[in-house]
């Protein structure tokens, strides 16, 4: 029996090869894409799950009530961790954590490493096993260092690194460290990354901030005792917070902040380790959201759904052509169950083939997927037993539903009905129409999403940011020279070149450079009995001129005036905060004895990501802070030559440092890499969705026109024109697309509106985003159906009537 089923199944599939191929193509693509997307989301969801102590490790954050509402952050001051552990019970282990670039020397090698300054508990809390060297407490000595396997290879090559001494430049001085252990490289799904780990006490800020509670610059992770819960600990820590932040709390009260519902102004909170990759503090509280991951997973399901709908519709329509066979089988004694198994089996064959091709497809596309979406996920993540089990279950359920539904319909028919070869249909097929509507609604939502994303990206790219981003190039000053002398040398080196217009430097980049770093530095002080917070930026002379900022009042820094080292230039937002009629000359208190005098106001410019509103900013000529980035403005002609000249000059000054220069517009582009990845994802998703929907529509139009051959013949015999017949055949489908649009537009609007709320500068949601996607779907649908229907409308009615 089985052999006979298989034989007839293969013959039927071959006879209807066009539909078989359409079905297989659709399902294979969908399976392939679904596998890739699932792989990506599982990879994301597995972040930080590899630590054996993950259930007890938390990151500490602090939330405070300001007069303008809640704020939250993860930066803590140096004495914080130690005091917390000794004053609040329940902490098993605690470590401070700050990441910085460290220029490392070994013999004649000189490499910039990503260094992590942590306390000695770090390696016993987190699961980065030591593969060589002292396993017990690799950071027990102040001058010991732990390097990763890759670093060992980079720094030592074939040599055995254990016990070797390396030098690291900290605060401009070379300090010796001894390599005590080699750990594994942090896995890709780890939010903690490092190339070398050193003791926290060695970090450049440590000495200066040892006793200070108001200098917050590092993160703190703690491991709670097994029986202590996060909520209990958060409550217990309140006394600690009230005691050590008394001054800040009083200032907040004075400025008119309202306490939170527990009556507190400052409160500690804990975020579980496995959540930190998904937690944002932008809204003033710890918001853990995996929605972007679920969006990707959802996309996988939508695409799979569309392909399945195609398959259901095609098999239902196809089966109506096999009614005689079914009737005959029944008169020969086939039972319902046997018919069900036969037809379901045919679907199963298609499914198995499609899954096979889908898996191949995902393996083939894996690499391009990884590059396109900047994902480091690989298919191997799907090989765990749970995932495989879930996948098998899912496939069984899908085949049962998708293959089983048409099979069930068929096996239910009565013998006489099916022998007549005609389904007693009441004209409409609700389920089929409903499924097509849902399919197109999904496609239209995705297309609208694409337009909105593209619109927002274009908006951000073209927005006037208040500075010259086309002609200015920035690069990090990473060499071993003092940054001020490096800039001075650069000026000398490039002097006299006609295409080099201006040179300056500052302590932060604009946008995100090739080094990928972004910093922020915030200064809070009391100004005339009122708390003021401002971002600060250390700049060199010519900063305003080089970047083309607009000076609204006052003057720029002047190298001929020594007193300018105690002057400040502020932006408009800062000026508003100071509430002075004439802000020039205002004194900003840096310490008891030291004041900065405001000498100028610049027009607000987007010094942070464009998604953020412009915050208060103060520019200082603070000679104690280092400069981290150099900026060079070049003439708009011969830009490539100028870049080469700058690179050559820098190479001469810092022969061992890498030149990572890029124009500011590229930097700005890099800040919305996430949006671009999302756009790429949604765009490809919508292309595939519309493609699959069209395959379905094409197949349906073929089957339906075939079923209506006789009707078309009759209409033509009594005088219908080709145009009217084409219209008749197309109309029903177009109605479905229109209904889909009506359903999809509000959904797309809602999603788009909510997503745009994340951006302070956002494109306006215009009706044409939706209209375009509706029209696009309609045009594609018409083209898909059109060819087929025109062909049957043109057919000779004698031919079509003869079939009866």
């Amino acid at each position, binding site marked *: 029996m089985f052999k006979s089923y298989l034989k*007839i199944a293969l013959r039927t599939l071959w006879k209807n090869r066009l539909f078989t191929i359409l079905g297989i193509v659709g399902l294979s693509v969908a399976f392939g894409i679904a596998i890739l997307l699932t792989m990506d989301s599982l990879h994301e969801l597995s972040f930080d799950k590899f630590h054996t102590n993950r259930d007890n490790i938390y990151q500490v954050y602090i939330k405070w009530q300001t007069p303008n509402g809640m704020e939250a952050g993860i930066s803590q001051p140096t004495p914080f961790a130690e005091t917390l552990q000794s004053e609040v019970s329940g902490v098993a282990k605690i470590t401070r954590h700050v990441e910085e670039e460290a220029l490392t020397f070994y013999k004649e090698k000189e490499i910039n490493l990503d260094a992590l300054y942590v306390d000695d508990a770090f390696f016993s809390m987190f699961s980065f096993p030591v593969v060589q060297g002292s396993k017990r407490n690799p950071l027990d000595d102040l001058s010991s260092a732990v390097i990763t396997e890759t670093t060992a290879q980079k720094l030592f090559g074939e040599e055995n690194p254990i016990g070797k001494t390396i030098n690291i430049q900290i605060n401009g001085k070379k300090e010796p460290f001894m390599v005590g252990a080699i750990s594994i490289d942090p896995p890709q799904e780890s939010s903690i990354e490092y190339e070398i780990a050193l003791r926290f006490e060695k970090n450049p800020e440590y000495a200066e901030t040892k006793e200070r509670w108001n200098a917050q610059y590092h993160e703190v992770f703690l491991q709670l005792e097994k029986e202590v819960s996060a909520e209990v600990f958060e409550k217990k820590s309140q006394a600690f917070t009230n005691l050590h932040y008394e001054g800040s709390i009083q200032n907040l009260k004075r400025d008119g902040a309202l306490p939170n519902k527990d009556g507190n102004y400052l409160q500690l909170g804990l975020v579980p380790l496995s959540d930190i990759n998904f937690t944002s503090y932008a809204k003033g509280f710890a918001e853990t959201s995996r929605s972007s991951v679920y969006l990707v997973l959802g996309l996988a399901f939508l695409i799979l759904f569309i392909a399945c709908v195609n398959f259901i519709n095609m098999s239902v329509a196809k089966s109506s052509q096999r009614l*005689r066979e079914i009737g005959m089988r029944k*008169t020969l004694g086939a039972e319902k169950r*046997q018919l069900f198994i036969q037809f379901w089996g045919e679907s199963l064959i298609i499914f198995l083939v499609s899954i096979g091709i889908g898996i191949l497809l995902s393996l083939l596309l894996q690499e391009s997927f990884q590059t396109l979406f900047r994902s480091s996920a690989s298919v191997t993540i799907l090989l765990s037993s749970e995932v495989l089990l879930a996948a098998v279950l899912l496939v069984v359920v899908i085949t049962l539903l998708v293959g089983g539904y048409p099979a069930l319909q068929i096996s239910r028919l009565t013998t*006489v009905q099916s022998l007549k070869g005609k389904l007693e249909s009441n004209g409409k097929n609700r389920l089929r129409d409903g499924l097509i509507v849902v399919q197109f609604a999904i496609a239209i939502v995705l297309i609208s999403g694409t337009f909105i994303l593209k619109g927002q990206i274009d908006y951000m790219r073209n927005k006037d940011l208040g500075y010259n981003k086309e002609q200015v190039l920035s690069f990090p000053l990473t060499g071993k020279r003092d940054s001020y002398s490096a800039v001075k040398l650069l000026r000398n080196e490039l002097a006299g070149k006609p295409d080099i217009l201006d040179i300056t430097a500052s302590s932060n980049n604009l946008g995100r450079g090739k080094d990928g770093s972004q910093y922020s530095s915030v200064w809070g002080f009391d100004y005339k009995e009122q708390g003021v917070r401002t971002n600060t930026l250390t700049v060199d002379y010519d900063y305003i001129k080089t970047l083309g900022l607009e000076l609204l009042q006052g003057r720029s820094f002047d190298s001929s005036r020594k007193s300018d080292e105690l002057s400040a230039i502020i932006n408009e937002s800062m000026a508003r905060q100071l509430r002075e009629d004439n802000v020039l000359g205002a004194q900003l208190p840096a310490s008891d004895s030291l004041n900065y005098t405001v000498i100028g106001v610049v027009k607000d410019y987007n010094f942070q990501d464009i998604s953020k509103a412009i915050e208060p900013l103060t520019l200082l000529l603070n000679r104690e802070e280092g400069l981290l980035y150099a900026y060079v403005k070049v003439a708009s002609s011969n830009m490539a030559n100028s870049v080469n000249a700058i690179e050559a000059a820098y190479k001469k000054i810092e022969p061992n440092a890498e030149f990572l220069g890029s124009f500011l517009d590229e930097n700005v582009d890099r800040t919305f890499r996430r949006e671009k990845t999302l756009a790429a994802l949604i765009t490809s998703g919508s292309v595939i969705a519309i493609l699959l929907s069209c395959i379905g529509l094409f197949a349906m139009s073929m089957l339906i026109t075939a079923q209506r051959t006789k009707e078309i013949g009759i209409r033509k015999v009594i005088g219908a024109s080709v145009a009217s017949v084409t219209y008749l055949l197309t109309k029903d489908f177009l109605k479905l697309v229109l209904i889909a649009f009506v359903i999809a537009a509000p959904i797309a609007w809602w999603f788009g509106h909510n997503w745009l709320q994340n951006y302070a500068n956002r494109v306006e949601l215009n009706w044409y985003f939706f209209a375009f996607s509706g029209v696009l779907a309609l045009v594609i649908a018409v083209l898909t159906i059109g060819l087929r229907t025109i062909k049957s409308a043109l057919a000779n009615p004698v031919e079509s009537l003869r079939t009866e």
Partner: protein
Amino acid sequence: MLLELKNIFKWVNSGGQRIFLLKDINLSIEEGEFISVMGPSGSGKSTLLNVIGMLDTFDEGEYHFLDESVHTLKEKYRSNLYKEYIGFVFQSYHLLDDLTVYENLEMPLLYKKYKGAERKAMVADMLDRFNIVGKKDLFPAQLSGGQQQLVGVARALIGKPKLILADEPTGNLNSQQSEEIMGLFKKLNEEDKVTIIQVTHSEKNAAYGSRIINLLDGRRI
């Protein structure tokens, strides 16, 4: 007695009116009879045949087949009953297009769960008897209408039924092919004692049978 119909009614409701397809049909058929059902189009011939073949249900009356009361049986037992005792021949042959002659003949045996070797022997026997051994690997589309109907009759006979129901078996055939098929029916009836009920329009075909039942508007006349 092979089968007996008592006061059979079958109707459909259309626009609030009850339209009778079969009206008070009484009929008893002995084993070994060859009956022709005649009547104009729409008189209920095919419906009657479908009811006898248990492919269709009826609304009122009693139907006894051998010792079973068909009207009280569940669908599953009914299908076992006709699978066992009844073979069908159709005007448009209804061979399965995707199967060869051999496979078409084998199909009823598969549903009756015969063993492989047994099936082989029975199909070979049937091919031999109908002289179509040379055509066993052809598909229905490669045969003439007469040959297709020959296969259709062979398929109906392969399960050794007691009763063959033929719905206008020669309706699509030319006169020479018709005579062949009718001759075959006659031979089966006389030599193998198979009971046959055929629906036909043609007086000539009806003459092959032993008894004629006339229908008009769902009634016997």
